């Protein structure tokens, strides 16, 4: 078992002929991801790393029956490409690009809701079911199979924490980045529900950030979870009212603040780590 993707998932890479698409296709193939086809409008007919390239998603799906997609498409073209994947019935659709226009992201989410697809991102490192498959950009050496499900907003921060889990002998089921943008497809709650149901996941790590209320919403769901949840929230030192990069980390009068998130999570029964490297010991303790 695994969450959302596994070794049988047939992956399409949209934007496969660009630098990032090419580089990460190679890495995904190395990891064992079953990349069956790629797309690049106007470049159909070539191959990238041995993967056949098509002009459209429909052509690729017709030939190779892909069922999930990862996009290495520049932000202005994400809306069309993501809708193309959704319309073709692919799910999940992983949107790596940052700087996707907010209105485009809202439309993609609306289209995905209508068609019943899961969109991961935008502005995500992707998803990895450890030792089985990887859709996105995380380094291949970080994840190791085991009983911990990880969901995070930020990529590098979750590699950081997953790395410390792995070094403590705590492998992962599935690790997913929901994306750093204000509007993203998959939310913390969606993913917590999936981990709660997954028989292989025995504990869950949630890596949040200041800004927004996604962590507070997650806390509401954590109240009814049977599995232990360990959280870490970044941004404790951020000065109030300053905006920190694309994370949209605006602290407004307590809502979305470090304190409000930590309080909500603790009240919900989650363990909250003060520092990134405290996560692994807390998980180890929770698993007994």
């Amino acid at each position, binding site marked *: 078992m695994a969450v959302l993707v596994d070794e049988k998932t047939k992956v399409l890479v949209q934007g496969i002929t660009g630098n990032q698409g090419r580089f990460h296709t190679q890495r995904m193939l190395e990891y064992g991801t079953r990349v069956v086809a790629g797309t690049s409008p106007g470049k159909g007919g070539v191959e990238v790393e041995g993967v056949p390239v098509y002009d459209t998603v429909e052509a690729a799906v017709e030939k190779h029956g892909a069922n999930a997609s990862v996009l290495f498409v520049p932000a202005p073209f994400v809306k069309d490409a993501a809708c193309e994947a959704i319309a073709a019935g692919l799910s999940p659709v992983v949107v790596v690009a940052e700087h996707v226009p907010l209105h485009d992201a809202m439309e993609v989410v*609306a289209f995905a809701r209508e068609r019943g697809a899961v969109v991961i991102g935008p502005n995500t490192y992707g998803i990895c079911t450890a030792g089985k498959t990887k859709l996105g950009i995380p*380094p291949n050496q970080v994840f190791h199979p085991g009983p911990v499900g990880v969901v995070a907003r930020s990529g590098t921060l979750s590699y950081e924490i997953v790395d410390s889990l792995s070094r403590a002998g705590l492998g992962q089921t599935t690790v997913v980045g929901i994306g750093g943008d204000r509007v993203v497809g998959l939310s913390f709650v969606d993913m917590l529900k999936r981990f709660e149901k997954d028989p292989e996941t025995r504990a869950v790590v949630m890596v949040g950030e200041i800004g927004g209320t996604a962590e507070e919403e997650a806390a509401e769901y954590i109240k009814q979870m049977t599995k232990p949840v360990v959280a870490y929230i970044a941004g404790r030192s951020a000065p109030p009212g300053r905006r*920190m990069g694309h994370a949209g980390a605006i602290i407004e009068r307590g809502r979305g603040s470090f304190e409000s998130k930590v309080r909500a999570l603790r009240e919900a029964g989650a363990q909250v780590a003060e520092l990134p490297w405290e996560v692994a010991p807390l998980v180890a303790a929770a698993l007994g």
Partner: protein
Amino acid sequence: MKLYEYMAKAVLREAGLPVPPGRLCRTPAEAEAACRELGPVAVKAQVLVGGRGKAGGIRLADDPAAAREAAAAILGMDLKGYTVEQVYCESRLSIEKELYVGIAVDAQGKRPVVITSASGGMDIEDVPEKAIVRMPVALPWGLMGFQARELARRVGLAGELASQYAGVVEKLWQVFRAKDAELVEVNPLAVVEGRLVCADARLNVDDDALFRHPELPRVSEATELESRVRELGLAFVQLDGDIAVMANGAGITMGTLDVIQHFGGRPMNFLDAGGGSAAGPTAKALEILVQTRPKAILINIFGGITRCDEVAKAIVEVKRRVGIPMPLVVRLVGTNEEAGRAMLEAEGVQAFRTMEEAARRVVELAGEGRGA
């Protein structure tokens, strides 16, 4: 990107919204002339922060001499850290009632939401929750006519004012969509002689959608230093400490600042070198950090889309070309880690494997630097 009031009002006026006449003035003389043309005016500081009224940034003037005087008082004023460089002289309104209406993005619902209240004229955050009406808008349908009418009813309007209000909300929706807005807000939406008028206006446009809005002016809140780094495509905010920080990803950058603070250090900046940056911009950003003369520099890279060899290449280049006179602590793991570490070691730069070690070390070195 936040627009100044006068810019936001120009956009609203073009969309057919009721906006009072006004003139942008850079000098007291211009304000005097504007008042001569418009009659009694409100002289309003053009700044990107709220609460300027309470801070003395708005003055009323009945005649040109008074307008001149008001502008002279406001221009050059410091409002919450911003110097007022322009005032907007706008026809005075005799306001009978003040409403609030805004359209924003509801991150939880993942769609736009119209927020409105019969209690306008103050911070919407100060209005009690029960006096606030929220209506989510489904995409791609957009705000429908009946929703605008329902909002009018919920803020207690009837008859002609209800119909004007619905028209205002529908046009604000068009602006919100057409301009890729994060926020469009009219507060107060004033009743003046039985008609609705946009007495104040805010329009924040999504930075990531600016490429498709050449028609909009460009406004930057960044300091000169911030602008220089952001031009490289990197997220950068100045802070008031002495340890320069560069990391990749907003989360790990925030986490790095937290950890530095935890060990007793004070970060000097937030620099998210982002995903997939090539050696070029990374080198330039590092060069700028060096120029800010921190007590120490911490580079914290956990490479995913970022390749460690590219980061190492940037460090080596800056070290060779301009030199790095202050202590430099590097933490480097992830994609192409071995190649990166080898390059740094060849240059005599030690790369740590853990964030904990690196953060401890940089705080230690910065302390030594301060001691020196």
